C-alpha cells in the first residue's frame, strides 16, 4: 500500500486551503502566481522524493559513515580548527529553542536573553584578550581578519596591508579576496624584515603563528606603531589561559577563532570570529558587526540593546562599515557558555594540557630516526615535524593505524607536517602515533 505524502511541518489541509482561497477571492492557488510570466511558470522540480524521518536517519547515517570520524580515529589536525572536550551543558543550553529559534535581537524587549548572553560574550572576550571592546561576533577568524585590515585602512587613511608570512595561508587568501575590490596592496614579509613602507595601514601577525610558534609581539608592536600603523593580532584563544594577551602588547585590533572554545569542528563551520579593539571614538565608529550595549528601560531597570547601529548596513546601506548582517549568535553563545564553565582555573588548565601534550609528542618524535622538529622557538600546541617521506604518504599510512595525521605544509617546509595536540589527545594516542611514525619511517 502506498501513502500519499503530507508534510508534517505544514498544518494546511485541503479544506484549510479551500477556506482561505475563498476568503482571498480566487478559484485556485495557481491564480496567486499569475504575475509570473506564463512561459516560465511552474517549471517542475527534478529532485528526489520525500523521505520519512526513519529513512532520513538511515540515509544521513550512511553518509556520516563514509567519513573517518575523529574520536574513532586519533586526530592531530589543528591549523585553525581545534577539537576539545566540550562539556554537556554547552549543547544542552544552546539547543534550547528559546536561543536556537529566535531571530536577531532587533526587538530588545523580547530578546533580552540573547542580548545579555551576547553582552557576556563581549565581556568574556575582552577579559580573555585584554582588549577594551569586542563586537558580538563575525563569520569566523579569517573574515574577521580581513575586516580588521579594511578598518585599519579607513582609520589610518592608508592603503598598504603588511602581513607576516607566518599567517595561515588560507587567512592570507581571505584577506586578498576581501580587499580586491578596493585594490589594497598587500605585502607579505618575514618577521625579521625591518623596514615598513610609509603607507603601511597595519601589520598583521598571527600568535602563535601558523606553524605554532610565538612571534615577538613586543618588537612587532613597537615597529608598527613607530610607523603610525596599527597592529592587528590573530590570536589562538586557547593559548590565553597561560600566555600574555595581545592587549598587553598594545595591539590595536585582535581577531580570533572562538570555535576553539566549545564548538565542534563540523567540517569547517559554523564558527564564530572574534573582533576586539581599543576603545576610542574613531575605532567604535569604524568597527564592523553587531555590538550589544547596556542601557535602561522606561522604569529605570538595566537592559541590553543592539547599539551603534548607524555603522551597519540595515541603516547606513552603501555607507556601512561592512556588509555583514550576522553575529553568528548561537555559536557566540556556545563559546560564552564554554568560557563560563572553564572559568579562571579551567582555561589555565586547558592551555597547560595543550602545551604539555604537544611538547610530549614533540619529545617522542625527536627520538625517532628520520624525523625531526626543525623550527627553533617556543611553541604552544602546534609544531612542525619533518618527515622522511612526504606528509601525504605518511598520512595515508597512518590511516591504517586509525590515526588522522597532521596538516601537510611541505609547500613551506620540506616534508613538513603541522601537528597539534589538545586536551582530547590522550597519552595512548600520542604514543601510538610515535610508534606508527617509527614503523612507517623504517620503511622509507
Amino acid at each position: 500500500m502506498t501513502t500519499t505524502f503530507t508534510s508534517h511541518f505544514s498544518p494546511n489541509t485541503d479544506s484549510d486551503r479551500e477556506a482561505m482561497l475563498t476568503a482571498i477571492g480566487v478559484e485556485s492557488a495557481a491564480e496567486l502566481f499569475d504575475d509570473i510570466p506564463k512561459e516560465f511558470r511552474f517549471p517542475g522540480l527534478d529532485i528526489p522524493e520525500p523521505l520519512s524521518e526513519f529513512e532520513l536517519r538511515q540515509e544521513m547515517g550512511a553518509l556520516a559513515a563514509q567519513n573517518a570520524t575523529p574520536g574513532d580515529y586519533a586526530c592531530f589536525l589543528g591549523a585553525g580548527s581545534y577539537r576539545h572536550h566540550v562539556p554537556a551543558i554547552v549543547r544542552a543550553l544552546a539547543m534550547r529553542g528559546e536561543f536556537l529559534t529566535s531571530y536577531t535581537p532587533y526587538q530588545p524587549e523580547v530578546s533580552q536573553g540573547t542580548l545579555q548572553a551576547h553582552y557576556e560574550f563581549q565581556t568574556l572576550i575582552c577579559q580573555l584578550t585584554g582588549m577594551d571592546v569586542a563586537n558580538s561576533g563575525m563569520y569566523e577568524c579569517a573574515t574577521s581578519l580581513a575586516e580588521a585590515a579594511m578598518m585599519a585602512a579607513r582609520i589610518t587613511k592608508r592603503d598598504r596591508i603588511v602581513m607576516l608570512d607566518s599567517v595561515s595561508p588560507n587567512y592570507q587568501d581571505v584577506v586578498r579576496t576581501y580587499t580586491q575590490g578596493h585594490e589594497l596592496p598587500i605585502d607579505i614579509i618575514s618577521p625579521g624584515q625591518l623596514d615598513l613602507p610609509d603607507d603601511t595601514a597595519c601589520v598583521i601577525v598571527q600568535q602563535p603563528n601558523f606553524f605554532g610558534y610565538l612571534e615577538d609581539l613586543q618588537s612587532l608592536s613597537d615597529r608598527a606603531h613607530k610607523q603610525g600603523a596599527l597592529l592587528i593580532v590573530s590570536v589562538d584563544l586557547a593559548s590565553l589561559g597561560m600566555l600574555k594577551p595581545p592587549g598587553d602588547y598594545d595591539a590595536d585590533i585582535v581577531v580570533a577563532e572562538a570555535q576553539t572554545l566549545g564548538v565542534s569542528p563540523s567540517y569547517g563551520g559554523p564558527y564564530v570570529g572574534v573582533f576586539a579593539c581599543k576603545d576610542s571614538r574613531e575605532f567604535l565608529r569604524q568597527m564592523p558587526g553587531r555590538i550589544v550595549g547596556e542601557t535602561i528601560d522606561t522604569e529605570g531597570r538595566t537592559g541590553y540593546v543592539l547599539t551603534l547601529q548607524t555603522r551597519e548596513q540595515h541603516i547606513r546601506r552603501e555607507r556601512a562599515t561592512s556588509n555583514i548582517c550576522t553575529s553568528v549568535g548561537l555559536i557566540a553563545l556556545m563559546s560564552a557558555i564554554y568560557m563560563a564553565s572553564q572559568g579562571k582555573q579551567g582555561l589555565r588548565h586547558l592551555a597547560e594540557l595543550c602545551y604539555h601534550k604537544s611538547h610530549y609528542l614533540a619529545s617522542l618524535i625527536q627520538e625517532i630516526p628520520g624525523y625531526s622538529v626543525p623550527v627553533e622557538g617556543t611553541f604552544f600546541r602546534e609544531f612542525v615535524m619533518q618527515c622522511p617521506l612526504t606528509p601525504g604518504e605518511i598520512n595515508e599510512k597512518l590511516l591504517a593505524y586509525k590515526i588522522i595525521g597532521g596538516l601537510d605544509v611541505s609547500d613551506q617546509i620540506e616534508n613538513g607536517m603541522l601537528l597539534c595536540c589538545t586536551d582530547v589527545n590522550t597519552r595512548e594516542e600520542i604514543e601510538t602515533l610515535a610508534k606508527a611514525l617509527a614503523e612507517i619511517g623504517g620503511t622509507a
Partner: protein
Amino acid sequence: MVVPERFLEAHNRKLLMDRSTPGRIGASLTKLDVPKTALPEVSLLRDNLDMPEVSESEIVRYFSQLSHYNFSIDHNFYPLGSCTMKYNPKVNDEMASLPGMSEIHPYQPESTVQGALKLIWHLQEILAEFMGMAGASVSPKAGAESEFAGMLMARVYHLSRGDTQRKKVLIPDSAHGTNPASAVVAGFHVVSLPTNEDGNTDLNALKAAVGDDLAGFMLTQPSTLGIFDTNLLEVIQVVRDAGGILYGDGANLNALLGKVKLGELGFDVVHSNLHKTFTQPHGGGGPGAGAVLVSERLLPFLPAPHVVRTEDDAIEKFSLVTPPQSVGRLGPFAGNFGALVRAYSYIRTLGDVGIAEVSEDAVINANYILSQLRGVYDLPHDRHCKHEVVFSAKNLKDKYGVSAKDVCKRLIDYGIHPPTMYFPLPNVVEESLLIEPTETESKETLDQFIEVMKLIAKEASESPDLLHDAPHNTTNTRLDEVLAARKPVLRWRRKTSE
C-alpha cells in the same frame, strides 16, 4: 501577593563576573596524563586571567533563566517579514550533530570525508535545480557574503573582458541594506532606483540609468514589498542589453520554489539563504549559510572551494576544487557545513512533492492575512502578494498618533513577535509593517493573529497610550536606545572603589 522586586527572577540580571566566587569552577578538568614540560619563560606568561568562577549548576540556571526572556519560533508566532521564520525541524539538529558530521576536521584528507563532500555536492545540485542555474558554491556563510561573492564575480567577469569602466551597480530602493553594502565592499559604486506606484521597478528610471558603465543590477524577487515584478522580463532585457550582470537576491525564495526558476528568466547569479528557506535555525542572529549559484558564463569565477564529482571505474569521487578564474576564498574552509547538513535534511524530508507545497502554502497564508486586514491597516499595494505582505500603520499614525512601532510593541503583549517594521524604508512605504506568516503556521494561528491586529487597531482609536506604553509584561519595558548609543557601555568592568 506582591513580592519585593529583588526576589523576582527577571530583576536578577547580574552578569557572570558579578556572580563569580573565588574557588568555584563550572567544568570537570581533564587529567594531565603526560609528563610536564617546563613552561615558557615567565615574561611570556600572564598573571591576570580574570575570568568567572561559577559552578556548573549556577551556569545552567543562569542561562536557562536568560532564555526565558526571548521570544522564539518554538514558542511564538513570529511573522517577521523578509526573515522567513518557519518551523525549524528538530531532526535536522540531530543530523548535524551526528559525530560523523560534527566531529570531522576541515583539513582531513578528501578520501576520509567522502560522505561530507557527497552531501555538499548533492546540495549544490539540488539548489541549482531549484534556481535553474548551472553551478553553485555553498561556501558563503551568509546571504550578505553570497552577495559579496556575486558582485566580485561580476567585477572579475567584466575585468576579464577588458571592461574596466563598468563600476556602477543599480539597486532598487526597496532592497535589503546588505545589497548596496555588499556591492560597495566589492569595489562598486551604487545608484539607487525608485520603485514605481505599482511596486514594480521603475522602468524609465532604469533605462535612464543604464549605460556602458553598468556593472550589474541587484534585484530581489519577489521584492521586499512581497510582490513579483510584472515588468520583470523587460527589466532583465534592459540590463542585459546594457551588458550588465543580473544579480538575483534569493532572500524571498520561499515564495518561488517550483513556481519559477530565476536562472530561466535570465539571472546570471543568485543566492539562497539556507537559514530562511531551508530551515537552518536563526540562533538569535546566526549562523546562516548562503549558497551562491551562477549561470554558465560565470562558472569559472565561482568562489573557492566548491565540490565536484568525478567517476573512475564507476566509483564516484568527490573533491574540493578552486575554479580556474575564481574570485578567491571566502573563508578558511568550505562554509558552514552544519547549516548545509540541516538544509539537506530538510530538502530530502520534503522531497519533490513537499517542496512544491512550501511556496504554495506560504503564499496562500500571506494572501489570507492580506484579505482579512485590508481596510484595517493601509495597504500600499493592493494586489496579490507572494509570501509576505506590506501594510502601513499610517492611518493609525495620522488619526491617533500611533506608530508602526507602537503596534509592534503591543503585539508583544499578545505573545506575538512583531512583524518587520520600518522596512521597506519610509521613502518606499511609510510606517511599514512587513508580515510573513510562512507555510508552517496553521489557519487557527493566522485567524488569531488577524483578530489581534484588528483589536490593536481598535485599541489605537480608544486608548492610544496603551500602545505607546507597550509592551507591558516583558522583562524590560521599552529600552533607551539613544542613551545606549550616546554613552556606550559595551562590557562589564570591575567596579573600582572610590
